[in-house]
């Protein structure tokens, strides 16, 4: 168990180290998120939405930015291995489980870094008031985790395809759409102070994240080795 974890963390550390040196994924995610945030805050701003509509509409905008920023950068984890011809040696050296978990940890770091930068800025620029702040943080954490799980396995599936970019979006959206709807409902609930909605959302996202984690862990060795 510890050996497996150590191998997985080695994969994640390697990816983070190479990412900090090249900043390809960070730039893709960060620039997309900041550009859309700037455009939304300039054109919509905090006051062009009626007060009663704000909890819902601002939740929709927030998760649209997060999801599409993720789609812009999270496929890099596997695509880069294939493009730079490092994937075969990684296949020979590391166990599939360690590669999967290492890549998941790397994608989690990216998505949480994006959220840490984006969400406070979004709340300030858009005047988004959150009544149930701890619940909102839990929704962000669970949403980021499930988003990373889904994008990691889809990135592995599409890495060897010719039309990677289009495939990543096409395969990700049907899986991410239910998640996005849950997260929008939960975030709206956290903004309105509706504890029941938030609780139901946390249950739903937790279930989805759990199912996707198990499915990914089982599916990944086949995807990676074949």
């Amino acid at each position, binding site marked *: 168990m510890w*050996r497996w974890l150590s191998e997985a963390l080695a994969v994640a550390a390697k990816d983070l180290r190479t990412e900090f040196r090249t900043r390809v994924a960070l730039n893709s995610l960060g620039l997309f998120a900041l550009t859309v945030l700037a455009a939304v805050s300039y054109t919509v701003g905090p006051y062009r939405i009626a007060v009663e509509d704000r909890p819902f509409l601002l939740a929709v905008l927030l998760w649209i930015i997060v999801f599409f920023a993720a789609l812009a950068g999270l496929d890099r984890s596997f695509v880069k291995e294939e493009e*730079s011809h490092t994937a075969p040696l990684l296949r020979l*050296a590391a166990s599939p489980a360690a590669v999967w978990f290492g890549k998941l940890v790397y994608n989690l770091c990216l998505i949480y870094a994006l959220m840490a930068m984006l969400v406070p800025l979004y709340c300030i620029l858009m005047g988004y008031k959150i009544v149930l702040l701890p619940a909102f943080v839990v929704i962000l954490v669970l949403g980021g985790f499930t988003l990373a799980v889904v994008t990691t396995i889809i990135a592995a599936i599409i890495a060897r395809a010719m039309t990677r970019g289009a495939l990543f979006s096409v395969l990700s959206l049907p899986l991410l759409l239910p998640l996005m709807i849950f997260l929008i409902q939960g975030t709206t609930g956290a903004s309105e102070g509706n504890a029941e909605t938030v609780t139901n959302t946390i249950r739903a996202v937790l279930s989805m994240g759990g199912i996707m984690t198990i499915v990914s862990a089982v599916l990944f060795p086949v995807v990676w080795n074949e």
Partner: protein
Amino acid sequence: MLSFSAMTSGTRISFSDVAKRYDLRVIFKSVSGEAAPGEVLVITGPNGSGKSTLLSILCGLLRPTRGEIRYLDGDHEVGRQDWRFHLGVVAPSMAVYEELDARENLGFFARVRGMGPSDKRCREGLLAVGLDPDRRTLVRGFSTGMAQRLKIAQALLHDPAVLVLDEPGSNLDPAGKDWLEEHVRALAISGKTILLATNDPREMEWGSRHVALAV
């Protein structure tokens, strides 16, 4: 020509009637061969005959369309999922990480192979292939010859029983080729099983067995 017998341990590889095709394109139809510990099996053939494809199949990175490949560790047959523990591979289609330096690369491969960080072993590995372990230049700044030496160090790092070398002398200078020949001979003597794909006449002479592929 190398021929080393009387090896008591190591991994024997045998393959029979191996064929590979992609859709209608036939790469090779029926290839068989065997390499025992202490032997160098040389695979030759013109460009496009499938030497690298055959090596990828023998490493478990590709599945053959037909045929059987067996790894025997003594009398015990090694499962396909465990072949990687027996293998060290150097191939033009397999790269190390350009955004890491040489020691970071070896450190990474040591950790994912469950050897721990083992900095001492990485330093020794780099010194063995003639690279300076204290040089912290990223691999993207390496010459092709230096990158080739690093790939060889990576393949030898975990002391594998089987070495798979696909045109290992490419990009090496004459001194590097001399070093490689000396090292391959020493590894064969020590009981390693070596699979070598090459068209270099000098490297072909290292073989104790040969498989020739045709287009």
